């Protein structure tokens, strides 16, 4: 089976101040194994609520979520689902539980009841994948934000997940921390074949994905490759979202009558296309 995640007609409602809020409104989508999907949308659009459904932190009010065919509603699958689909949150400080890096990474597999010799192997392997081996004996609070976030990712990898869901993993990081984390995520996707679902406000990160899903008020309003999605500059702006600066420039030059393709996403593509006008 090549489906990692199946979301079918999912509605999620909750009550706030005695008001009924529909956070997700009959949402359906699928994520294939090995795919890299970005979810964008402004605060309150339902992105994080969606993410929390993907490893059974939340259960749908209506509809079904399946992770590798396992329905999140079935309690017996809970631990299998959490092992298959790991989650990384925005604030690295809220996810680190131990006082030494390697112990933190070992926390997950210990809870799974993995035997000690294998735990050591998994910790070694996870730390090497996020390029943090040399910090294994350090205290996490002395690390930078990007390093802490990579430790959090290592902790998830140690559970041997098939899918990692990241909820704004770079929101609190500086530019170099952001680059470190994105590089790590891409590597896990490309080299280890781990399915990635990255929720982000940074459009230059969304551009790196195979597919982009745009959410607004609990609905999916746009979906497609980064090129398909980001060429809709007006629509994205209406939704209060950014497009990469070069895409916006292309859009403005085009409306001034300059002949350019409307799916330019990177500086290199823009340079190539402008040079063609020479």
């Amino acid at each position: 089976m090549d489906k990692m995640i199946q979301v079918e007609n999912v509605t999620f409602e909750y009550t706030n101040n005695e008001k009924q809020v529909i956070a997700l409104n009959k949402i359906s989508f699928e994520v294939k194994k090995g795919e890299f999907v970005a979810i964008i949308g402004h605060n309150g659009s339902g992105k994080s609520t969606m993410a929390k459904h993907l490893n059974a932190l939340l259960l749908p009010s209506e509809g079904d979520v399946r992770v590798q065919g396992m329905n999140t509603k079935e309690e017996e699958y809970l631990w299998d689902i959490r092992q298959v689909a790991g989650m990384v949150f925005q604030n690295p400080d809220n996810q680190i539980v131990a006082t030494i890096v390697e112990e933190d990474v070992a926390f997950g597999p210990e809870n799974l009841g993995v035997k000690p010799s294998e735990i050591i192997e998994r910790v070694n392997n996870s730390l090497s994948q996020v390029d943090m081996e040399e910090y294994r004996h350090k205290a996490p609070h002395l690390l930078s934000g990007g390093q802490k976030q990579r430790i959090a990712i290592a902790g998830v990898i140690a559970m041997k997940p098939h899918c990692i869901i990241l909820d704004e993993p770079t929101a609190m990081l500086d530019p170099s921390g952001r680059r470190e984390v994105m590089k790590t995520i891409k590597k896990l996707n490309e080299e280890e074949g781990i399915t990635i679902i990255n929720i982000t406000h940074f459009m230059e990160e969304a551009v790196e994905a195979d597919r982009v899903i745009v959410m607004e008020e609990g609905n999916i309003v746009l979906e497609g490759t980064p090129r398909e999605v980001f060429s809709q500059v007006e629509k994205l702006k209406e939704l209060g979202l950014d497009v990469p600066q070069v895409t916006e420039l292309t859009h403005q030059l085009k409306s001034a009558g300059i002949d350019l393709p409307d799916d330019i996403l990177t500086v290199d593509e823009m340079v190539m296309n402008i040079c063609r006008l020479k």
Partner: protein
Amino acid sequence: MSVKIENLFHIYNPGSPFETKALDDINLEIKAGEFVGLIGHTGSGKSTLTQHLNGLLKPSKGKIYINGEDITSKDIKLRDIRKKVGLVFQYPEHQLFEETVYKDIAFGPINLGLSEDEIAARIREAMDLVKLPFEELKDRSPFELSGGQKRRVAIAGVLAMKPEVLILDEPTAGLDPRGRDEILEQIKSLHQKVQNTVILVSHSMEDIARLVDRIIVMHKGKIALTGTSREVFKEVETLESIGLGIPQITYLMKMLKENNIQLREDILTIEEAKEEIMKWLRGRKNA
């Protein structure tokens, strides 16, 4: 209100194995009414520096003058500094604590010893500045609001003190693009209206390029670069070597120039880039 820093040093945990020089001989002058951007990667000393400016941290060595007055002197009252210099921390909404929005914003002004009428007027004004509807929200719990609204309540709490120097430490971190644009717009329009001195700490080079008169770049506790945005963003190699970048649009113009297209390199915004490229295209047609 001007800020002048002379030979400022700050050493954490002096004399212990963890001794770290967080600020290393900083000399800096910010003129009254200036809007400066402070950039540098995590650990470069930005936050340590800003915390000195309202007396939260004491220098290990050196002097800080706010409008000519030495705030490092022993007889200075902290309350007098805080009246002049308002600091909005990173994720300031984590510091909300009162049961209503009104009370939360009132906390600072009450501590300034203002009259009740004056406090009420200031709360209304501060909420207006950050575009929070007064009547609708004043009696609500700040904890029920959305992330962007909470952030604005926290900023209003600082604005209600009417500081002449406003320091914002990554005021838009974690906000979505719309929330970010709104807050930056409000900071900018307040600056234009009252000509306060603003120090904006940010990781977003695009935001910095759009807003500030001058950029100060910190690295390893020292000032690595300073100048107008145009000057600073020309130093791509230096910035990249210390873990920073330049706005994508500035980078594009630089790459075009390297491909022998004669354009100005010191472009900061999409509008400028568009104009420059159009000019180049017209020039070519006429040639």
